[in-house]
């Protein structure tokens, strides 16, 4: 053989041989075989192929542990209790662990690889969570920064309680290299099992809201995962004092329509305080006014903090917390007791809790949607 070819061919041959050995070794080493995952003390048992992260492995079996970052280890939402010993906490898990978490064997599902049989604990509600393929039926502008998105579900139906939320799967777009998930409360009625409606407000610099406002079009397909959340109407005769502004209206729209349509919770009276800055920031005013006119147990109190004189605003004026304070002292009937329902940013929730406590509500009767 020509001496010039001998060299390169030998090098190629050795490289190929080594690559082959490595490939065979990889098949052998990374084949953990079929492993068993036992959830909640044997309530549910899965047989899975080992080697991948717990989050994805559970996802493939239809169990969706919440995750905002899609498994990259940067949100801490996928915490679950792993009873089997899987080694010490990894450096990638530590930023999200409190000392209590470490003691209780709480791990991040996206960082734990399934290499042996596992016993884990998950909250019960996760078992009713499904992934839905939907199509955008309509996008409506409610204000300059809030859109109403109506999604119709293909092939399945959704069962949820008014007040719950879904995780919207945002695909890579524009310059965003990866997919993320973000949580939004459902504003649609539980009775409409073929639709999911969301109220989404544009957050400056926000990845998901920018996608919805600038890229999403009617007819696009969107994945949602859900339902999640413990925010719901409590079955007591107490009156509901609801406070929300902007897209925080979503769970309340769902609750109000549900109660109006089905007559559920017939003893409860509902007060809804809706705060905004000017009339341009308000929406659904006509619908809410019509509802409160035809439904005696519903009272709608919109308040503007900075109405312009030319708007001729006839409603309440001031910060929503001040208006809430006034009404709790004056107009609200306390005969059956009071419950607080809040949806908004932590700052707003804390301010409202203070006003409510000052006016006699106890903290255990104030419910809020924590993720805003």
């Amino acid at each position, binding site marked *: 053989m020509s001496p010039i070819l001998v060299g390169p061919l030998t090098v190629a041959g050795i490289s190929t041989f080594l690559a082959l*050995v*490595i490939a065979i*070794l990889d098949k052998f080493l990374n084949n953990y075989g079929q492993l068993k995952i036992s959830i909640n003390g044997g309530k549910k048992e899965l047989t899975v192929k080992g080697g991948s992260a717990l989050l994805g492995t559970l996802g493939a079996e239809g169990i969706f542990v919440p995750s905002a970052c899609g498994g990259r280890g940067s949100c801490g939402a996928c915490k679950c209790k792993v009873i089997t010993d899987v080694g010490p906490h*990894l450096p990638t898990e530590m930023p999200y662990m409190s000392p209590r978490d470490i003691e209780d064997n709480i791990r991040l599902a996206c960082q734990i690889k399934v290499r042996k049989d596992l016993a884990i604990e998950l909250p019960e509600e996760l078992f009713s969570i499904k992934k839905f393929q939907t199509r955008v039926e309509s996008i409506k502008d409610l204000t300059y920064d809030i859109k109403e998105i109506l999604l119709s579900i293909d092939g399945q139906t959704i069962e949820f309680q008014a007040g719950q939320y879904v995780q919207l799967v945002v695909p890579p777009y524009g310059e965003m290299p990866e997919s993320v998930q973000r949580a939004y409360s459902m504003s649609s009625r539980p009775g409409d099992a073929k639709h999911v409606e969301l109220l989404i407000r544009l957050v400056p610099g926000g990845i998901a809201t920018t996608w919805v406002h600038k890229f999403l079009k009617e007819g696009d397909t969107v994945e949602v995962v859900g339902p999640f959340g413990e925010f719901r109407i409590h079955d007591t005769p107490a009156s509901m004092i609801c406070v929300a502004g902007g897209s925080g209206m979503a769970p309340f729209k769902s609750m109000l329509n549900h109660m109006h349509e089905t007559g559920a919770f017939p003893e409860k009276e509902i007060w809804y305080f809706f705060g905004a800055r000017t009339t341009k920031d308000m929406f659904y005013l006509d619908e809410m006014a019509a509802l409160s006119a035809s439904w005696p147990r519903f009272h709608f109190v919109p308040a503007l903090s900075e109405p312009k004189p030319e708007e001729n605003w006839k409603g309440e004026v001031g910060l929503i917390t001040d208006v809430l304070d006034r009404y709790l002292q004056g107009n609200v009937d306390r005969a059956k007791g009071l419950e607080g329902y809040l949806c908004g940013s932590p700052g707003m929730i804390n301010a409202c809790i203070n006003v409510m406590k000052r006016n006699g509500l106890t903290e255990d009767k104030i419910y809020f949607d924590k993720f805003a």
Partner: protein
Amino acid sequence: MNAPNVGILPLFLASILTSNILLANFLGTCSFISISKDFKSSMGLGIAVTMVIGLCSAICWAVLYFVIKPLGIEYLSFIIFIIVIAGVVQMLEMIIDRFSPSLYMALGIFLPLITVNCAVLGVILFMQIRNYNFVQAVVFGFGSGAGWWLSIMLLASIRTKLDKNNAIPAGLKGTGITLITIGFMAMAFIGFSGMIAVQ
């Protein structure tokens, strides 16, 4: 060319003590300095390096005498050795990830960096230059690895005391004082040189 007349035991001891690949030949220092901060990782890395050097020495000897020399392609020996080293390190990384994920995480980037650890290629080239036979090559390989392992364990032990010492001036803390310490260790190991000479 004949294999040198060196017994197995003297060769093994020499590769650890008098011709320590790290302290006498100053090869393989970059991960030596970085990982010696932590004793447990040093233990892990030391074992990994020993395995790599020992295995590579054996495999490269076989490749040298059964492939390279017969085909007369000595001019390609460097690239072939490096490919073999890379392959062995790749396999070792997969094995460690499978059987000890915490060691895998602790070593981090330094596991694949064993590929470019000059101690490995250095040992193989010494083996080639000195015309060792197969047994000598294997002994020399594992011996040099053991020497590297011994050195990093010693340095890690010294550093656990040193890093707690506040008397060290700020400019020398960390890498500075470590390099000086390695120098002292090298000088101390010269004390072994009367024992056996293999280079």
